[in-house]
């Protein structure tokens, strides 16, 4: 596992990894809390737009905590962070296209296939 990293950079990397264990325990606690909250959304039968907003909110908070603290993204170089986080944004285009497609398929089934199929 020999690789060419200038000595200054290795020291930076090692400094960056020396977070106190309490940080991980804290994030662990937050993740437990957020999971419980999203479970409660279902348990309390919250419906409609409030339900979807809460689910997405808790999901994004959990994903952010895992990415930034557990996966150490908060301490990486910006180039790497952008290389990882920007490409998935194009998926929103796919989602948009597929919403249109699903709408079309639904009405085709409902109107021309007698609600079956």
């Amino acid at each position, binding site marked *: 596992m020999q690789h060419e990293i200038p000595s200054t950079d290795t020291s930076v990397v090692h400094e960056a990894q020396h977070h106190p264990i309490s940080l991980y325990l804290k994030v662990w606690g937050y993740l437990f809390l957020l999971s419980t909250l999203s*479970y409660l*959304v279902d348990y309390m039968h919250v419906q409609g737009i409030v339900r979807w907003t809460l689910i997405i909110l808790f999901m994004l908070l959990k994903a952010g905590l895992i990415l930034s603290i557990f996966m150490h993204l908060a301490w990486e*170089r910006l*180039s790497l962070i952008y290389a990882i986080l920007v490409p998935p944004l194009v998926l929103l285009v796919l989602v948009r296209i*597929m919403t249109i497609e699903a*709408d079309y398929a639904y009405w085709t089934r409902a109107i021309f*296939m007698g609600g079956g199929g």
Partner: protein
Amino acid sequence: MSNAMTDRRDREVLTPSLREIAADWSADQEVFRHTHWGKAMMWIFLLSDTFIFSCFLTGYMTMRASAVLPWPNTAEVFALTIGGQDIPLVLIAIMTFALISSSGTMAMAVNFGYRRDAKRAALLMLATALLGAAFVSMQAFEWTKLIHEGVRPWSNPMGAPQFGASFFMITGFHGLHVTCGVILLLIIASKVARGHYDRTGDYSSVEIAGLYWHFVDLVWVFIFAFFYLW
């Protein structure tokens, strides 16, 4: 002359961090020079995996939005009877907590690895692998339950047939990832325990295995939200 002018304008317009990105990317293969090569490769793999799981979830969205028959209520489908009482979605909640806990132990294993505490790192990785194995076992139990209830990838007695297809596809692929992760963790943990990384002086492999494991947890966060709770 014109070069000097562009330089000055760049310096005025761009913030230091944006200039750092420009410098990294304009240096071709130098982009990831400051990152351990294994870590950069793992991140690129995870990025491609993100697209695979996103395609599954988008496919699930399309199927669910175009289904004419009613979608089964996941809270009831995944309910368990404990002490004579139906608790909705309880198995999925336990699985979620198991996976989050495994992520916590993994993050600490990485930390102890960088502190060259081989014993604690190996033990924590073993705990992570055990929690992962518990997760897969619960998933196997859930699959068995649904198959007994007559859910198939092409049909399902509770409503929309698309439910079975997306359930088996998404959770199956995620379960496969967890299984691979458990094997990877066991291999790396045994290498840690045997002092392999003390000899090479490089504990990056623990962090790279950790990245994979956290990603598996990350994917579950999205599956939990979109498939089970939506």
